């Protein structure tokens, strides 16, 4: 019998995050450790924490885990691992070591499924050159999986949310729509083949995109996950002290994303992400409602959003495409900070 992991959960992947407003409320009561060697902490809502070991070397440290995004255990393992490792790439780091984080029911699911999830994780880690050297499992009704990952970075080559510069162009390396496609698939509005395309992107490491990014000495980038394209752009704009303009018409979309939203297939996370962010965002007059909602779709293992000096954007797009990231596009630009951190057009 084939195991269907999706029967355990209503919404998987990065759409399972605690609503951002709620999370901030809790985190603000916690003390933030003070240490001059902490180069990146929670203040700038970045992808990972960074700790300096020497002038030449710093640790990048992150974790991410979530309930199933697909039926097949092996594919779920691959996607969860790609997603966890992505934060290291988004900081300009090289992932090195990882620990498995697993929740799995002691009864009610075949242990083969457990093994398959781990296998998917190991295979993806190997592709990234990451050694998994341990882990921890808890008995829990709904399976959940991910990694805690350590990477290395030269502090001078660090890429953060705070590194976007005025006048830069914004490049996105993967199409958007994984949350919408997955919701549509649950409602039988999306065929298996199309879901397959979405899964292909979710499994894809941000390794090649990050390698191109390093060649261009980029200082500002992030990966797009649970808060959606607009949510992550907003965090970056805030951390960098700039405003950003994104033209949603230029954003590459997965398969039938637009059609699904047009038929009302708008996942709940779009609304919660929108509710959290909208005070800081302006929407162009008469903006297409579907494009607006797509901007807030939670992505699982989404692409890199890279802030690149304007005169180099064209070359970078070519290089990203040559590296196999065919959907890479300039989707917007960075401006001086004005009354709104993000301007969505479309």
């Amino acid at each position, binding site marked *: 019998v084939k195991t269907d992991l999706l029967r355990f959960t209503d919404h998987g992947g990065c759409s399972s995050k605690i609503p951002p407003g709620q999370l901030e409320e809790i985190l603000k009561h916690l003390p933030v450790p003070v240490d001059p060697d902490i180069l990146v902490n929670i203040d700038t809502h970045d992808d990972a924490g960074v700790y300096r070991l020497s002038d030449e070397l710093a640790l990048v440290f992150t974790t991410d885990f979530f309930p199933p995004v697909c039926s097949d255990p092996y594919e779920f393992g691959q996607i969860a691992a790609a997603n966890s490792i992505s934060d290291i790439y988004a900081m300009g780091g090289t992932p090195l070591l990882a620990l498995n984080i697993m929740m799995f029911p002691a009864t009610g699911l075949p242990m083969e499924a457990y093994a398959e999830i781990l296998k998917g994780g190991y295979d993806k880690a190997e592709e990234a050159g990451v050694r998994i050297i341990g882990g921890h499992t808890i008995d829990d009704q709904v399976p959940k999986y991910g990694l805690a990952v350590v990477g290395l970075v030269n502090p001078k080559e660090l890429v953060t949310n705070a590194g976007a510069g005025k006048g830069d162009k914004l490049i996105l390396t993967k199409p958007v729509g994984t949350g919408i496609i997955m919701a549509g698939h649950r409602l039988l*509005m999306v065929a298996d083949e199309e879901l397959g395309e979405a899964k292909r992107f979710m499994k894809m490491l941000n390794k090649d995109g990050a390698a191109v990014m390093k060649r261009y000495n980029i200082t500002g980038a992030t990966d797009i996950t649970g808060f959606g394209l607009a949510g992550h752009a907003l965090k970056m704009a805030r951390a960098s002290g700039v405003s950003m303009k994104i033209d949603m018409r230029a954003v590459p979309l997965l398969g039938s994303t637009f059609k699904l939203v047009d038929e009302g297939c708008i996942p709940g996370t779009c609304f919660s992400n929108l509710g959290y962010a909208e005070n800081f965002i302006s929407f162009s007059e008469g903006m297409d409602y579907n494009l607006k909602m797509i901007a807030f779709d939670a992505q699982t293992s989404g692409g890199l959003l890279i802030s690149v000096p304007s005169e180099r954007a064209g070359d970078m797009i070519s290089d990203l495409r040559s590296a196999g990231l065919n959907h890479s596009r300039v989707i917007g630009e960075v401006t001086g900070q004005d009354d709104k951190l993000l301007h969505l057009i479309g």
Partner: protein
Amino acid sequence: MKVVDTRGKKCPAPIIETKKTLMESTKGEIFRVLTDNRTSYLNVSRFLADNKVKFVVTESFGVWTFEVNNETGISETTKVGEYCGTGADVPPDGYAVAITSEFMGSGDDKLGSILIRSFIVGLSVMDELPSVIVFYNSGVKLASKDSSVIDILREIEAKGVEIILCGTCVDYFSLGNKIGVGSTGDMYQILQKLSQAGNVVRP
């Protein structure tokens, strides 16, 4: 009065059913939507408000009842149908541009080269941009990194126009590692894009 009962269904199903009923209703028609979960109640409310659809909602014993009034006749003004059915991501009222040569017209290639450049510059400032530009035969040379129009093509692409290069042609001219814009596609994709466009413009 039509009643859309979405009780027991979670988001986004209630929104899908609400939107479907809204699109099928006539101007001025009133219908009800029922939901029994708070998230769907909030999201359907937000969806209707954002789309400027008039509604009132009441709650009783954990069931929210929307009375939706299609006062503005939303279905008669929205182009929703155009996106459905074809499986295409290009609305059929758009147009496609097919660039089949690095020169525009025949007679003198030097002139043809000047003409194609001004054609592409002109295209970039059109009020209505094409949905897709397809390059084939020697046309693909225009999309190479050292082409004189590369910056303009990139600008057009950044505005959301899809650029497709004939893969066979890219290989034929050995441009594989010199491509500066767009992505390569096979003949099937090219045919699909051209056949789905409302009009095809060929310089």
